[in-house]
């Protein structure tokens, strides 16, 4: 690529190669770039400008979100029928990856918002209330958060202690949530709860609570190692509203079919973007080093080659997962879920699990290499080669749904996978 350094930091995309192309061809290629991608780059520039301040003060990245709203990217995943851009999961993943190269907290908040949008779109489109919500989200560029964890339950989002209280056409819910990321900045919060006060812990529903009908009482702060701009504070949440706001699909199904695959692919996109920005810093450092001593390749070159190779493996793994998610999504719309081979569904679940565990670990490994390449310039804050924030942000990756818990779950899923034996039924 002949593109200048700054461009390569944000434009790693599938645009046709510019090498050797004449000016006319280059112009067409630029015009062919979808407008959402250009918008994502503009937002990334804003996010990058405030990334250090957001990190230092552990504050919400409001400048980046003003930009995202202005560019109408909060409704990127809402279907065109409701006024959104109707982008695919892979395209939204590309936006997350781009944003993460500017500010990881911005990208993670954006990813978490899109996960909520995906759940409403996939499981609420049959309800007039939820269709209206999507239309309003497009109009006002609403930001959606989620409250799945609960104080007495811990990190297992598949059980709840709190339950929906129904009184005629209205509901009320009260939940002690140890973390609601950017809860104080959200226009709506998706809350899990037991279906009724008599329901078992795993018989959950997902409720869309709106800000005007929700009280949040802050119970805990967010002074964390990294991802400081996500403001993942603890709250006591009390929400009321109409019974229609409860999604009809059981949460177990929403989690398996949508929340989990969309979370893992979009989180992986964010982590890949963080690693990509770190590698770009290593490349710049390495070039500066090589320039200072023409004719010799600095010793960090081996590590850079290793880091670039790992990053490419992450990108390839991610695109395989995005394709698998697309196929699984399509298959669901084809119907006949009950007779679909279980091995395929369980295989998909374990595929999404290993995506999460491997990308989260590899991203850290890549940035560790980058730190060795950039040395003290990388260790120090405030240099063009600093990667302290990248490392701190990425240390959240193996913990967001603990990798050990996921690996145990994957191991169970693998029990159902048998090698195809020729000649056997």
């Amino acid at each position, binding site marked *: 690529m002949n593109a200048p350094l700054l461009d390569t930091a944000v434009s790693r995309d599938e645009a046709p190669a510019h090498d050797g192309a004449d000016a006319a061809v280059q112009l067409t290629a630029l015009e062919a770039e979808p407008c959402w991608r250009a918008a994502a780059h503009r937002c990334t520039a804003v996010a990058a400008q405030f990334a250090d301040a957001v990190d230092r003060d552990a504050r919400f990245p409001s400048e980046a979100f003003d930009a995202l709203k202005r560019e109408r990217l909060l409704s990127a995943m809402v279907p065109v029928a409701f006024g959104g851009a109707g982008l695919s999961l892979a395209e939204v993943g590309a936006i997350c990856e781009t944003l993460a190269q500017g500010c990881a907290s911005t990208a993670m908040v954006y990813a978490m918002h899109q996960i909520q949008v995906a759940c409403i779109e996939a499981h609420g489109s049959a309800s007039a209330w939820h269709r209206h919500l999507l239309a309003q989200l497009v109009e006002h560029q609403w930001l959606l958060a989620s409250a799945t964890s609960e104080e007495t339950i811990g990190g297992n989002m598949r059980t709840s202690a709190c339950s929906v209280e129904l009184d005629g056409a209205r509901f009320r819910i009260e939940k002690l949530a140890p973390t609601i990321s950017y809860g104080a900045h959200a226009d709506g919060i998706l809350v899990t709860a037991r279906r009724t006060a008599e329901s078992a812990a*795993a018989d959950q529903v997902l409720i869309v609570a709106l800000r005007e009908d929700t009280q949040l009482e802050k119970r805990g702060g967010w002074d964390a190692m990294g991802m400081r701009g996500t403001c993942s504070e603890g709250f006591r949440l009390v929400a009321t509203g109409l019974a229609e706001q409860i999604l009809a699909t059981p949460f177990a199904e929403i989690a398996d079919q949508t929340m989990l695959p969309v979370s893992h692919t979009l989180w992986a996109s964010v982590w890949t973007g963080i690693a990509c920005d770190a590698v770009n810093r290593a490349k710049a450092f390495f070039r500066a080093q090589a320039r200072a001593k023409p004719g010799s390749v600095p010793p960090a070159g081996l590590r850079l080659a290793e880091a670039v190779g790992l990053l490419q493996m992450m990108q390839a793994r991610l695109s395989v997962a995005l394709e698998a998610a697309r196929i699984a999504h399509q298959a669901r719309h084809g119907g006949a879920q*009950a007779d679909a081979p279980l091995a395929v569904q369980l295989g998909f679940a374990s595929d999404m699990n290993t995506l999460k565990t491997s990308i989260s670990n590899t991203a850290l490994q890549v940035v560790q290499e980058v730190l060795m390449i950039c040395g003290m310039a990388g260790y120090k804050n405030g240099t063009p080669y600093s990667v302290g924030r990248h490392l701190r942000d990425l240390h959240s990756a193996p913990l967001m749904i603990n990798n050990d818990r996921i690996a145990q779950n994957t191991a169970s899923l693998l029990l159902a996978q048998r090698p195809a034996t020729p000649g056997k039924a």
Partner: protein
Amino acid sequence: MKNELRRILSESARLDVAPDSLADDADLYAAGLSSLATVHLMLAIEDEFNIEIPDRLLTRRLFSSIDSMAAAIVELQQARAA
């Protein structure tokens, strides 16, 4: 056979309700059967009845009720005897 299936359900399926209180045709997914639990259920059935469930039968429907699991087990046992 259905008694054994109820015992297996109580040991490996971690349902929200006691398997003894379930009708033979009750929807087990509605009773809290998770996709992860179906894996353990499958292995327990294979061990108990000394069969191997082929991929063709391995669907969500298979584990949807005690009736449907019993029917599949009978089919596989007959196929083996034949």
